[in-house]
């Protein structure tokens, strides 16, 4: 059973539908007991880092998610949920994340030439860096859907794929049982569904 962590951030409809479409049982919940029982966890998120981190704390799930991941339970952070895996973010101030993967979340504006539009919205190609269980059967160069203005920096050794938008942006990371996608697999067509399927087997 995949547990989609509901902490009051973002729209979980598509994520839930995606797991249904690939035949994986999932539950959307903010109940600590349900999250403890799940075999693997998805941490979604949209909006601003500070708000989301605060909501995760307010919901009483911050420590639980971190502890479950540290105990070895597979965890997939998506979009802002991926950014929350890092220790620190510089989005509107400095905020503390889960610290499960070394690195920090910085504005993409500092990594790309002036004149390119921000947010980075649309379909862009995954440039694979190291083999990752998430990308089994996903060809290098596959397109996935991004919407973001910040990305993870200083995490080169954990980056499993990057994407090119004037400069290289971190597209996904993995450290042992903890993985993150900056893009939205639930909005990335068949490629995205394959990635979620791979996570369900991870």
């Amino acid at each position, binding site marked *: 059973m995949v547990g989609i962590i509901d902490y009051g951030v973002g*729209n979980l409809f598509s994520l839930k539908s995606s797991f249904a479409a690939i035949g994986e049982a999932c539950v959307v919940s903010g109940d600590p007991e349900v999250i403890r029982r799940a075999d693997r966890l998805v941490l979604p998120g949209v909006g601003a880092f500070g708000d989301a981190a605060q909501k995760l704390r307010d919901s009483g799930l911050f420590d639980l998610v971190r502890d479950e991941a540290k105990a070895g339970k597979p965890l997939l952070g998506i979009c802002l949920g991926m950014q929350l895996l890092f220790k620190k973010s510089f989005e509107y101030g400095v905020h503390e994340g889960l610290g499960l993967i070394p690195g920090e979340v910085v504005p993409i504006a500092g990594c790309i030439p002036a004149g390119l539009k921000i947010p980075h919205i649309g379909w862009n190609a995954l440039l694979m860096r190291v083999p990752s269980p998430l990308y089994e059967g996903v060809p290098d160069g596959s*397109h996935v859907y991004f919407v973001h203005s910040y990305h993870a920096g200083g995490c080169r050794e954990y980056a499993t794929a990057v994407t090119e938008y004037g400069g290289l942006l971190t597209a996904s990371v993995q450290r042992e049982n903890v993985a993150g996608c900056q893009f939205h697999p639930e909005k990335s067509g068949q490629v995205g569904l394959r990635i979620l399927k791979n996570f369900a087997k991870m």
Partner: protein
Amino acid sequence: MITKRIIPCLDVRDGRVVKGVNFQGVRDVSSPVELARTYSASGADELVFYDITASAEGRRLFTGILAQAASQVFIPLTVGGGINTLEDFDRVLKCGADKVSVNSGAIRDPSLIGRAARRYGDQCVVISADVKRVNGVFTVFSRGGRDNTGLEAVEWIRRCVGEGAGEVVLNSIDTDGVRGGFDLEMLRAVSDAVSVPVIASGGAGRVEDFVTLFKTLPRVDAGLAASILHFGEVTVADIKKALRDEGINVRI
């Protein structure tokens, strides 16, 4: 690098796609959900559902259809039509929409954009503008192109982006339905004025029109297509192949 997007637009009234169902190529597709699946399978990068329903009952059908499409089509979905309040945003987002497009609702109350952007994020709010030349001035029309608002279009769109709109759909009334190509002059004026993605709408009649659009205006991010696709003459895959052959980056 990010790809240019091809976005089919489905006009839905009382639960049915209005354009296209009786035309060759899509004639045996009876529901918007089926049509959405067809487009998605042929490589659509995103879908726009436009609700042109008048009745409350029709609205209920529409959200039902949206939820069905969203549970079967895993690409971004934008919803427009009749969006006047934050409750309207809420209603369609809960059914699986990723972005919400506002038009007349923002003209009536420009604060709607800022309030929605603060609650749901800029990426969620799309300003859709219906624009026509009046005495040589790009002028915004409301209520489906019926009312001249007197607003100058570039200034209006810039203001909406300033309020928090994360994307612009520019519908040229002058080229809409003519199928003689996109309104490059109008698109240039708008895409030079804003830093968010601009989606061209109105005028696509042939595959070559998309090539011309992106070659002439590399700052335009996406092309919207309705009748050219619904009439079944070309597919999303045809458009993308032509773009790729011309060296334009697309997702295939």
